[in-house]
């Protein structure tokens, strides 16, 4: 079974993140960039499927040249090879445009299964797999907390609010993974060494036959007009419990007319 896993590099959600005031896009240059943490579940699941079904795991990333770090991480976890689509013209693209580039790249690869994370922590759009499903005309099984492969049939338990939905579709298909699906492995020392020798193919828009004028900020389908830091909440009150913590807490609730 040939598996493509989609991996994105994002600014670390634990560090200060910002938009770039020059063009209102996510500031990636000065940021502490890491692999999108939700994608680690996708990689783990792709590797698990490969281990039971055989085949190859290819990492696909659309992003600036610095995204190689995310690719290396995926390769050191055990993916076989990678395709990195990078092109200056892509900067500032909206999700709709990015999905056209990913779809074009996927069309050049052989796959039975595409695995994505459920959402990226920078944009938090969580729509990429749905956009790709629509463009490629293949089924999407979303929010998987469990994936079972039975020949060409995929069974997924889709995580919902209060339980799950049992889903079923035929390959080729896209599965997006929820964080309840597995426990992503840590790269071993051997894995990290091996990753250095694994092939990474770099492609431009030209290689994919995508017209550069259809992507990028100028032709994006939505635009950020302005942004600001969330207004700071008024300085909160902090009390140390000295036997009177509960009383003070209830006093605060009473002052707020909550009790």
């Amino acid at each position, binding site marked *: 079974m040939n598996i493509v896993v989609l991996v994105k590099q994002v600014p670390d959600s634990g560090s200060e993140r910002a938009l770039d005031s020059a063009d209102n896009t996510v500031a990636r240059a000065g940021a502490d960039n890491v692999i999108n943490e939700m994608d680690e579940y996708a990689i783990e699941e792709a590797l698990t499927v490969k281990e039971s079904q055989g085949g190859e795991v290819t990492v696909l990333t659309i992003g600036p040249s610095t995204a190689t770090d995310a690719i290396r991480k995926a390769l050191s976890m055990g993916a076989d090879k990678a395709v990195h689509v990078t092109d200056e013209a892509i900067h500032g693209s909206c999700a709709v445009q990015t999905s056209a580039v990913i779809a074009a790249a996927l069309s050049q690869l052989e796959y039975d299964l595409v695995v994505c994370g459920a959402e990226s922590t920078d944009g938090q759009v969580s729509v990429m797999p749905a956009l790709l*499903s629509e463009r490629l005309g293949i089924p999407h099984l979303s929010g998987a907390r469990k994936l079972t492969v039975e020949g060409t049939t995929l069974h997924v338990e889709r995580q919902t609010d209060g339980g799950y939905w049992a889903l079923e579709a035929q390959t080729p298909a896209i599965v997006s993974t929820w964080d309840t699906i597995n426990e992503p492995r840590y790269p071993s020392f051997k894995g990290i060494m091996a990753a250095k020798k694994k092939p990474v193919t770099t492609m431009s828009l030209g290689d994919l036959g995508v017209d550069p004028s259809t992507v990028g900020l100028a032709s994006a389908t939505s635009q950020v007009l302005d942004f600001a830091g969330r207004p700071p909440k008024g300085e909160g009150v902090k009390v140390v419990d000295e036997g009177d913590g509960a009383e003070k807490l209830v006093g605060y609730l009473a002052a707020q007319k909550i009790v």
Partner: protein
Amino acid sequence: MAEVLVLVEVAPDGSGVRKTTLEALTAARALGEPSAVVAGAPGTAASVKAALAEYGAARVYVAESDDVDAYLVAPKAEVLAQLVREKSPVAVVIPSTPEGKEIAGRLAIKTGSGFLTDVTEIAADGTATQVAFAGATIVHSKVTVGTPIYTLRGNSVTPEAAAGAAEEETVTVSISEAAKQTRVVERVVEQKSSRPELTEAAIVVSGGRGVASAENFSVIEGLADSLGAAVGASRAAVDSGFYPHSFQVGQTGKTVSPQLYVAVGISGAIQHRAGMQTSKTIIAVNKDTEAPIFELADFGVVGDLNTVVPAATEQITARK
């Protein structure tokens, strides 16, 4: 008057529309006259029509078919795409649930439009407000291509009643083969709670790893019940088996925005904040004075939850 399509979200237990639908109808009125779109199994519209009329739906498009129910998401996007073509609305508003976002994305491709997810406000000129980076940044954005599609974040708009004619129009649905690729074999409900629904509750009391055991979550439940609140949990509490996943608050759990959020034994990791940062008032109880949750808290108690919380519960109950 300009028409705005609003996708109706029905409660999974068939008890009527979800609050998200009323919020979407209210937000849509900034742009024009809302038309509710009911896409579901036969009989769905009848159970929700009264609520739609009460919240300003001028029309109700009824697209009922077993296919809409039997296949995942894609049929609903197809119904909306058909209506966008036929009715030329000025915009489409969809509740920002995982399903809603998938529908929005598919609709964008089908109609050649842009979309904005997780918006908290829509202005009359179509400009949307969004919160980025787990609530740290406020962004104003606009769709520049096609029919703007918005998904509205729960609890960011207060539903306001406004009489609507709710004139029914049946939509003939013929779902294409392409939209019938992912079959929904079964919908399984694992957890039901007698407390208020987490995403709709005015008060939420959440427990974290600091609660230390499943048994000890009774401390959290006790406080919640004294306040008439819903119970939530951090992922660490869920992963440790203290409380079921369906009560998780955060990036991969539920997004809540109540009047009052009480975080007990929760450190305040970015992924947790992502789900609760827009709460009106935040109270934290934590024994570590350095816990990041205190940065968010309007009122914080540095102390042991096992003494502070039961005592607070007792005092609140005594006041009644």
